[in-house]
């Protein structure tokens, strides 16, 4: 049959060790899911997942401190260069608090995810057995006590009306049953996809990584224990729009393949540099490709999924998604812009100006009208995507390092913020409506202070990481001659500050409602995650030198 034209690819295992660790860990995690009895599954899976992430992080650190040269490996599918390592480090570092949030069982009894049917069945079985015992006891004379207990169960039932006591108890029992432990392999797969996504040196790898990172996220979105309909709806929306956009990405890939006869980024750049081929293929492909990428990064007019999904998904998933997806997507955007389209930058940048402005303005203006905290943060993320785009468009070393830094800073802030959002709870799960947050500063000063700090970071107030990041990005953009954009960005920052402030106003300057939500005492996992996020936000604002130093002077291969 067809002779193999190329030799077998060589694999630099040292370079791709983090990816191998995470993806291999994901596979093993699936196996653990299959083999472990459900009682220990959750704990073992969490430990294992953390182990994998930390091991991956260590591998990244070892690699980046070893001074090993940047390489492309796996037949040019992956480029392990400075930015890739930085992004990997960022992703894995962000994954730690995300995983902790996902695994939390203290805020929501049994975790935030749909109950495991297996464990649930067992719990109800037990309940039934107890019921039977009680019934027997009642018949033999202990009726009063059991009746009282049943009554109590009724009162405590979540939506007690029309439900007998036993059912109420069963519901309580099911509330404490652990959620699906499948979230761990999902997260690992998504993470693996992200790692590959931002290091992919050809578009096909990028596309596949895109799907590998997206598919688990779609599923994770639909797994909320409370507000199931909303959660599933968000999953469907995310899925349909995500698949739609990835189809665009793919078509762009196909057109570029037609243009350059290769999907390697460097080849596309070369073809674009000196070719007589029709530019319509090149720019058509670029446009479609960018649509797909922008969607993932929830930029500008391609953001429509963001608020819905952020709101509907379980908050811990939102945290993971908001932080890590953005990092991965912008990693890819940076690479594509720099490596593949760096030579034609003057011909497409104008369009991206419009996109960036649209993103910033949409995020800020629509953010103003929101009444739900999660939606508000979602729109803020759209605005932030616009800021990030500024850095990504610069295609200069400064722009690159600024964007990388921004991603890291934004990621930690967001993770911590969503962790805090998950703490404010009403009778039926999280209370994310703005009005529920009134007077939080009085009721729970520590949580309110942390939220305030993170909000200020998002607004870009000095001494927070948000400011340093914005500063870096804006100076890079300004140095590259994007003065009008920077001005717009600054004005938008001011507008956006308004809705961050509104929340602060609500928390501190309003009186708490009588039947307002309670603030859960976070368990160790959530506490660690939030603390980590807040501390990093502060550190990057006050002493960003180490990270900036690392981000500085990185460059893409090819």
């Amino acid at each position: 049959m067809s002779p193999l034209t190329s030799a077998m690819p060589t694999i630099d295992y040292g370079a791709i060790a983090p990816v191998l660790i995470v993806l291999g860990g994901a596979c093993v995690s699936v196996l653990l899911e299959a083999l472990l009895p459900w009682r220990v599954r959750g704990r073992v899976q969490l430990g294992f997942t953390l182990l994998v992430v930390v091991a991956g992080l260590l591998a990244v650190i070892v690699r980046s401190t070893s001074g090993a040269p940047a390489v492309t490996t796996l037949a040019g599918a992956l480029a392990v260069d400075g930015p890739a390592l930085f992004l990997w480090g960022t992703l894995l570092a962000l994954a730690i608090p995300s995983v902790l949030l996902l695994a939390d069982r203290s805020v929501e009894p049994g975790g935030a995810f749909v109950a495991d049917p297996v464990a649930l069945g067992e719990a109800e079985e037990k309940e039934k057995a107890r019921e039977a015992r009680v019934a027997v006891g009642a018949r033999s004379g202990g009726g009063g006590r059991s009746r009282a207990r049943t009554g109590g169960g009724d009162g405590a039932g979540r939506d007690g009306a029309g439900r007998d006591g036993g059912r109420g108890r069963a519901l309580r029992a099911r509330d404490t049953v652990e959620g699906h432990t499948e979230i761990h392999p999902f997260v690992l797969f998504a993470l693996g996809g992200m790692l590959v996504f931002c290091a992919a040196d050809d578009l096909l790898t990028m596309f596949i990584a895109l799907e590998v990172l997206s598919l688990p996220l779609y599923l994770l979105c639909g797994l909320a224990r409370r507000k199931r309909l909303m959660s599933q709806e968000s999953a469907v929306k995310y899925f349909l729009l995500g698949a739609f956009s990835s189809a665009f990405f793919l078509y762009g890939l196909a057109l570029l393949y037609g243009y350059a006869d290769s999907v390697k980024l460097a080849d596309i750049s070369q073809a674009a540099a000196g070719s007589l081929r029709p530019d319509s293929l090149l720019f058509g492909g670029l446009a479609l490709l960018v649509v797909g990428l922008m969607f993932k990064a929830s930029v500008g007019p391609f953001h429509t999924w963001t608020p819905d999904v952020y709101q509907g998904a379980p908050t811990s998933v939102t945290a993971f998604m908001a932080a890590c997806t953005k990092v991965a997507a912008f990693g890819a955007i940076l690479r594509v812009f720099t490596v593949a389209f760096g030579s034609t930058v003057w011909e497409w940048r104008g369009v991206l100006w419009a996109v960036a402005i649209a993103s910033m303005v949409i995020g800020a203006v629509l953010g103003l009208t929101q009444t739900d905290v999660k939606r508000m943060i979602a729109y803020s993320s759209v605005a932030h995507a616009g800021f990030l785009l500024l850095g990504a468009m610069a295609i200069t070393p400064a722009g690159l390092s600024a964007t990388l830094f921004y991603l890291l800073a934004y990621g930690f802030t967001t993770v911590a913020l969503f962790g805090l959002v998950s703490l404010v709870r009403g009778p039926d799960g999280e209370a994310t409506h703005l009005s529920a947050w009134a007077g939080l500063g009085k009721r729970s000063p520590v949580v309110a202070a942390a939220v305030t700090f993170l909000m200020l970071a998002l607004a870009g107030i000095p001494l927070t990481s948000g400011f340093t990041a914005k500063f870096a990005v804006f100076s890079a953009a300004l140095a590259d001659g994007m003065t009008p954009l920077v001005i717009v960005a600054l004005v938008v920052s001011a507008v956006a500050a308004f809705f961050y402030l509104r929340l602060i106003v609500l928390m501190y300057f309003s009186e708490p409602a009588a039947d307002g939500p309670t603030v859960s005492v976070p368990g160790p996992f959530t506490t660690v995650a939030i603390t980590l996020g807040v501390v990093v936000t502060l550190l990057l604002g006050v002493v960003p030198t180490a990270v900036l130093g690392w981000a500085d002077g990185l460059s893409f291969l090819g």
Partner: protein
Amino acid sequence: MNPVPPPGYTQSLIADDPFWLTLIKVLVIFVLLMLITLFMIWFERRVVGRMQQRPGPNWNGPFGLLQSLADGLKLAFKEDIRPVLADKAVFFIAPVLSVVPAFVAWSVIPLGPEVSIFGEQTALQLTDLPVGVLVVLACSSIGVYGIVLAGWASGSPYPLLGSLRSAAQVISYELALGLSIIAVVLYAGSLSTADIVAAQSTGWYVWLLPVSFMIFAVSMVGETNRAPFDLPEAESELVGGFHTEYSSLKFALFFLAEYVNMVTLSAVATTLFLGGWMAPWPLSLIPGVNEGWWPLLWFFGKTLAFLFVYVWLRGTLPRQRYDQFMRLGWKLLIPVSLVWLMLVATLRVLRTELTTGQILVVGGIALVILVGAALLIPDQAPPEEDKEPPVITDYPVPPLDLAVPETPKRRRRAVAGKRDDQQATETVGAGTSGEGDR
């Protein structure tokens, strides 16, 4: 020994065919298939009859050979009924969809070697594609559409369930089928059916790949919905399965498709594992036996042997329960064929890459690991608490833990002897209550 055509030779041969020759071949194969179908129906009834100590059809024509022709004609003159609830267009097109792929699959079956027809050198094969095996697989996949759409379009519960079952069954067994073919391809190094046959000149793959052959043979029966796997048409449960609402010629088409499929898969099995048109061993020593038109005899002989096995199975084995059947496919055939395939691939690569000593070392290590793994397997089923309890959800589904009341003792003793017969009837509602949550 006979000369073996080099790989790709048959292709070049057929590529030179003039169009009239192609037309002739198409016509011949078409007619042949019709005839074989008629013959098969008769053959089946006769053989089953014999197995059941009765004569079978023996009235129309010599030995009742014309019986199936009479049946066919009768079908044509039956009333054609289309239920009100049916989806018109799909109901109409489904039989065609099921019959066409059955015929098309025959295009790539090599019936014999190079011959001369009206002075034109050609091969006894309609066409030889570089992806011939895939055509066969594709055809069997497309055939499923006919069944599913027929059941769906009927607008009636039994056909719907029947078609679903049928589809589930076909696709389940297609996996095992496809996996077993891969082993053959591994050794033949080609997807062209002619090349595969040629590659077997030194030995049939049935000897080299016995596991694959067995898997293929079992899947073949599942794939064609034949007894003991004829669940889609389980009369006792689903009336007639997907073709309950069909009558007259449309029904005949389904019937035809089923038998053609049977013949097709038998021919494929012959091609892949039994050396196709090559003569069996002692005969193959006779020079000239694999040349000219003789191979047709070997080919159809082998195919007929498979067909006989089909009939034999039907006459011997009781119908399987649906869950047993799916378990067989998913939990036995697929894992076994995967492991087998990896084994074959490993051996094949190692044979070319490593020396014998290295192979022994690697094999020894593998053996040790396997033994170790075997020791780790628990002796008994996992403890009860470890098993997955039934699913409980919010949705209004009937309770899944309905216990079947125990049979009275006296009756049980009486029934014990006929257990097998009973099994087939115990699966009522296998489809309807299968709303698990996973």
